[in-house]
């Protein structure tokens, strides 16, 4: 028996099947993600020495909706900029400063030390709930 289905119809059917499959996948994914928003701020103490972050952390990870406090201390005057959220602070040696904000947008945002060259100190990762 010969099949007389036009190829573009077959493409449409397969596309539909895939879409249905993915919808089920999405629906399943969504049910696993009901969590509440923490009211307690997520605090991170970060220290810069010689223009670099001490320790080995490459990312600061929070969840969407978290209240976040990044507490910065440095060994010299530094201008720090959190991209995306666009928060800029100037930190002097011995006088810690805080970036406080609510993580309303998901994404991966570089925090750079400005002045001369722009160097990424650490990435803020805001993950979806």
């Amino acid at each position, binding site marked *: *028996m*010969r*099949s*007389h289905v*036009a*190829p*573009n*119809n*077959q*493409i*449409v059917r*397969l*596309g539909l099947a*895939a*879409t249905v*499959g*993915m919808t089920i*996948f*999405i629906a399943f*994914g969504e049910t696993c*993600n009901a969590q509440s928003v923490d009211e307690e701020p997520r605090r991170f103490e970060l220290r810069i020495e010689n223009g670099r972050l001490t320790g080995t952390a490459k990312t600061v990870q929070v969840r*969407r909706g978290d209240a976040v406090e990044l507490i910065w201390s440095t060994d010299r005057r530094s201008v720090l*900029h959190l*991209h*995306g*959220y*666009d*928060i*800029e*602070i*100037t*930190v002097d040696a011995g*006088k810690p*400063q*805080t*970036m*406080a*904000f*609510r993580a*309303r*947008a*998901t*994404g*991966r*945002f*570089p925090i*750079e030390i*400005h002045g001369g*060259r*722009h*160097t*990424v100190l650490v*990435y803020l*990762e*805001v*993950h*979806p709930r």
Partner: protein
Amino acid sequence: MGMIRTKLFTAVSIVLPALGSEASAHALAQRYDLPLPLGYFLAAAGAAVAVSFVIVALFGRHDIEPARPIDHAILRGTIPTPIVALLQVLSVGALALIVSAGLFGDQRTFKNIAPVAVWVIWWVGFSILSAFVGNIWALINPWSTVFGFAEALARPWAKLSLRLPYPRWLGAWPACGLLLLFAWIELVAPGRDVPRNIAAAILIYTGLTWAGFVVFGRDAWLKNGEVFSVVFGFIGRFAPLEFTHDGHWRVGLRSFAAGLLTREPLEPSMTAFVLLMLGTVTIDGLMETPPWAALVEWFLAGRGGVDANPAAYGALQTALLVAGPLFLAVLYLAVVAMMARIARSNIPGLGGMFVLSLVPIAIAYHLAHYFSMLMVAGQFIIPLASDPFGYGWDLFGTMLYRVDIGVVDAKFIWYLSVVAIVTGHIVAVWMGHVTACSVFRDVCIARRSQYPMLVLMVAYTTLSLWILAQPIVEPGAK
């Protein structure tokens, strides 16, 4: 708390003067996408492989008819001339605005409409529009519009075009060269976010395009030399709307991807063009991945790092930009050679038959890669529309609009990526098989001929997913 500027949702305004010169992997970088989590990556890659086998199995059971003629449109209509004219006037006006803003406006990237309008709205926006709606560029190409108008005006007195016969050997090679140059400007060239440079590039390209129209006639140059007509033309073959011109503009409705099924093989230069398109799309993403950054940093470590060697870094990027598409071309030609061996036939133009079946994978990847950038960076057009020159105007009352960086949730992008890439892969595999059936006329041979193609497709899809699963980094930034 200190001096904190908590402008949560904001134009990246304060620090922008420095942004234009910053090294970044893409024009107007500032992409804040989270990498695709491992689970999504594995689910999508697994689905792509599984689906490939399912399609192969399906093809074993049926004797499939050769692909139908390419005239797939189910509905056809004519677009009213006033609508076309209006769109064309808007398009020419937009180009004039972009060029004058670039030349005379504020030179800071986000204080001038040119960079966002060109890199985000037009280049990213139009490629997505071309893929999912139709190749509207064909209707509104401003260079073609102005030249056509000038030709019509001059007709009683003179012919504007020499209409020399277009040399066959030249084919679409001019468009290939221009695409490579454009990709280089997009991904490598320093100063590509500077409004004046953009305006200058547009003016030069305008001159070149009109020269092409004058020498070879408008149609010949649009087909072979006007790179954006060729790019959006190929991408637009995936779209459900098909625009054709025969004195009036006609629109036809067809199924997605139907326009990519060819009966006639592509010319070698067109095949090269498609491979170049596919290659540069991937290289764009590859240049933001940690392994590439590590390679660059390792290479430049002995010479003082990336910052001290902008030229060497540019040279490395250029090398990758050339090597990537070449590598893809070699792989593709090897696959075609294997296909010919399996089929034991020497069909002329075999290489021009299968290249378009890879396009859906690239379109899916492009959507996944750029959707959030279009939605976030694209918002800059709202304040800039009110103040295109950065003179402090407020034409539409939107000058103070603040960009909402939270407009698309990462989870939405992840699902979109997985759905788009798996669907793109399915369509690609299916198209390869349909084409093989019509070329080889024998289901068994057709099926076996597609094994090497299947490997290439799975590899291309997996690479696309892998790039999406990488955190975005800049070489030398850390």
